[in-house]
C-alpha cells in the first residue's frame, strides 16, 4: 500500500503559496527589456536534469552542488538514512570487512553470550556471532529485496505505461486486473504464489514482487496520464512532435520521479514482506542467515537471550525507516513542481 512519510515541518512553504510572494523571480519593470531580470540564484531549482544533456551543466553545476549540500545540512535525517543504507549495502558487498567472526560456525563454549565488545550483538545457541550473521545475511536480504522491487518496477511500469498512454480498452482491461490484485492483501497474494512456486529466497522475492505490480502500475498510469495531458505536451503535439518522441522525452523523464519515490517506498515494504515470509519459514533453509529467519531463530530463547530477537529486528526497522526517508526526499521535489 502506498504509504509515505509525512513530516509537516512548519518552516516549509508550499510553492504557489501566497506566502512566497515576493521571494521568487519577480519581474521588475524598468529598463529596455524590463521583465528580463536576473533570476535569483537561490531559486529552488531542483537541479535534476534529463540524462544525456550536457549543455549548460557547467555554468550552474557548482552553485547547485553548494545549494544541494546546504539543503542536506538542513536535513540531518536524510543524511543519516543515506549512511544507514550505505553501510548495509557495504555489508552485502564486503561482509568480511565488517566482521571477523565466521557467520556459520560457532564456538559452543560461547553460546548465548549477551552483547559485548567482542560480540556486538551477542551470540546464539550454537555460539555463532549474531552481528556477523546479520552482516552476512545482508547480501541475501538485499538481493531478494532488489529482485522483488525489480519485478514490480519493470512489470508494473510497463503495464501502467501501456494503460496510461494507449488508454481506451487496453487501459480498462489492465486496470481492472490491477484493481483485483489490490483487493487481495499483498502478503496473502505472495503466500498464494509461494504455494505453487515453492519455498526459497528467490521464490519469495518473486512472490513479493508480483504482489507489488499493481502499485507500480497505478502510479505509472497516473503519471503517464498527468504528463500526457500536460500543457507542455499539448504544445509539443501541436508543434508537430511525434508521439514516440513525446513519450521518450517528456512522459518518461517526468514520470520517473514519482515512480522512483515509490520504488524506494516499495523497497522498504519488500524488506518487511520478505523478512515476514522468511520469519514464517518460507525462506531459505538453515543455516542461511536471512534477517527474518534470524529473528525467527531467536523465538525459542525469548526469555534467555533477548538480543537474538531484538537486534536483527532493529536492523530491519532501521533499513525500512531509511528507505522511507529516502522515498520522502524523492517525492518532495516532485511536489514542488506544478
Amino acid at each position: 500500500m502506498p504509504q509515505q512519510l509525512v513530516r509537516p515541518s512548519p518552516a516549509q512553504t508550499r510553492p504557489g503559496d501566497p506566502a512566497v510572494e515576493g521571494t521568487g523571480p519577480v519581474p521588475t519593470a524598468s529598463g529596455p527589456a524590463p521583465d528580463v531580470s536576473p533570476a535569483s540564484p537561490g531559486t529552488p531549482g531542483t537541479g535534476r536534469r534529463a540524462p544525456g544533456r550536457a549543455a549548460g551543466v557547467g555554468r550552474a553545476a557548482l552553485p547547485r552542488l553548494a545549494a544541494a549540500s546546504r539543503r542536506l545540512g538542513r536535513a540531518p535525517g536524510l543524511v543519516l538514512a543515506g549512511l544507514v543504507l550505505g553501510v548495509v549495502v557495504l555489508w552485502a558487498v564486503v561482509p568480511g570487512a565488517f566482521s571477523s567472526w565466521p557467520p556459520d560456525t560457532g564456538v559452543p563454549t560461547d553460546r548465548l553470550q549477551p552483547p559485548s565488545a567482542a560480540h556486538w550483538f551477542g551470540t546464539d545457541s550454537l555460539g555463532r556471532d549474531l552481528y556477523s550473521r546479520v552482516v552476512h545475511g545482508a547480501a541475501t536480504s538485499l538481493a531478494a529485496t532488489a529482485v522483488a522491487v525489480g519485478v514490480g518496477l519493470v512489470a508494473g511500469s510497463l503495464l501502467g505505461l501501456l494503460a496510461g498512454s494507449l488508454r481506451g480498452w487496453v487501459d480498462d482491461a489492465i486496470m481492472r486486473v490491477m484493481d483485483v490484485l489490490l483487493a487481495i492483501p499483498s502478503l496473502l497474494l505472495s503466500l498464494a504464489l509461494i504455494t505453487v512456486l515453492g519455498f526459497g529466497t528467490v521464490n519469495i522475492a518473486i512472490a513479493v514482487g508480483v504482489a507489488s505490480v499493481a502499485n507500480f502500475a497505478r502510479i505509472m498510469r497516473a503519471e503517464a496520464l498527468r504528463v500526457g495531458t500536460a500543457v507542455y505536451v499539448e504544445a509539443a503535439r501541436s508543434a508537430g512532435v511525434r508521439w514516440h518522441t513525446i513519450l521518450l522525452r517528456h512522459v518518461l523523464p517526468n514520470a520517473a520521479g514519482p515512480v522512483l519515490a515509490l520504488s524506494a517506498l516499495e523497497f522498504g515494504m519488500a524488506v518487511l514482506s520478505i523478512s515476514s515470509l522468511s520469519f514464517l519459514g518460507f525462506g531459505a533453509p538453515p543455516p542461511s542467515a536471512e534477517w527474518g529467519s534470524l529473528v525467527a531463530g531467536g523465538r525459542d530463547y525469548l526469555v534467555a537471550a533477548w538480543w537474538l530477537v531484538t537486534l536483527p529486528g532493529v536492523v530491519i526497522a532501521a533499513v525500512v525507516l531509511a528507505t522511507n526517508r529516502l522515498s520522502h526526499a524523492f517525492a518532495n521535489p516532485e511536489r514542488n513542481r506544478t
Partner: protein
Amino acid sequence: MIRFIGRRLLQGAFVLWAAYTVSFFILYLLPGDAVSIMASGDEQNAVDPALVARLRSEYGLDRPLPEQYLIALVKALQLDFGISIKNGVSATAAVAEVLPETIKLAAAGFALAVILGSALAIGAAFSRNRWLRQAFAALPPLGIAVPTFWIGLLLLQFFSFRFRLFPAIGNDGVASLVLPALTLAIPTAAVIAQLLSRSLHRTLGEPYIEQIRAKGASDALIHFGHALRNAAIPTLTMLGILVGNLLAGAVVSETVFSRAGIGRLTVTAVNSRDIPVVQTLVVLAAAIFVLTSLLVDLIYPLVDPRINTARRVSV
C-alpha cells in the same frame, strides 16, 4: 440510491469473480499440475494417495483446462472450493471453523488501531507544544518501519515472560486477545495516523480554514468543528485496503502467539501446499475487501454531501 447499491453490488460480484479467476490461474494453471504439487505436501505429512485421486476425478482436474475452470467456478458459486488436502474436510468448512477467532482478533485490532492512530494524528496536528507535536509526528513512520512479527515477539518478551501480565499463547479469554490485537493494531495505527495527519495538515492549509479563522473562530472550533471532518474523508476511502492489511497482519500475529485463526490456517495451508484452502482464503480476502468498500460507499454520502447531490444533480 437502490440503483446505486445495485450497481455497486454488481461491481463487487465482478471483483469476486475476477479474484477467483486470478487465484485459479495462479494456483491451478500456473504450476501445470496442481494435484502433483499438493501430493508432494510437506516433508512430515505424506498425503493420502486415495484423497488425491478423489480430488482429481471429483474436481475434473484431469479434463481440459477450460472445462476444469468452468466446473470449478460452478462449484465455487455453491461455496465449494474443494477438499483440504491436510485433513480431508471441505476447504470452506476448514476456514469457517476458525474464522470467528480471527474476526474477534481483527475487530479488537481495528478498534485499537483507529483509536491509537487518530489520537496520534490529532495530537500531532493540534498540540501547541512543539516537542509534543514532534514526538507525535515521529511515531507513525517508526510504526510503519518495524516488522509486525518483531513487535509481537517484543510484546511477548515483556508482557508475558518478564511481567507475566498476559498469556503467551492460546485463544482463552480476553486476556489472550490483548497482545495479539496490539501487535495487529500498531502497524495499522501507524498507517491511519500517517494518512490522517497528512490529510489534516493539508486541510488546515485550505483557504476555507483561514476564512473560518477570519470569522473569529477559536482553534477548538476550527479543529473539531471543521478540519477533522474534512480530513477524515480520504482516510475513509482507504478503509478497504486497511482491513485487508489487518487480515495479512493476522497471519503474522496468530503465528507469533500460536492462536488458532485463519492466519495460522494460511501458514499451515501454504506449508502443506493445500491449494483448495489457500484459494478459499484468497477469495475470502477479496470478499472482505468488497464488503468493506460497499460499506464505505454507503457511509460516504453521509459524511460528504458532494457525493450524494452530485449524483442526483448529475452535473
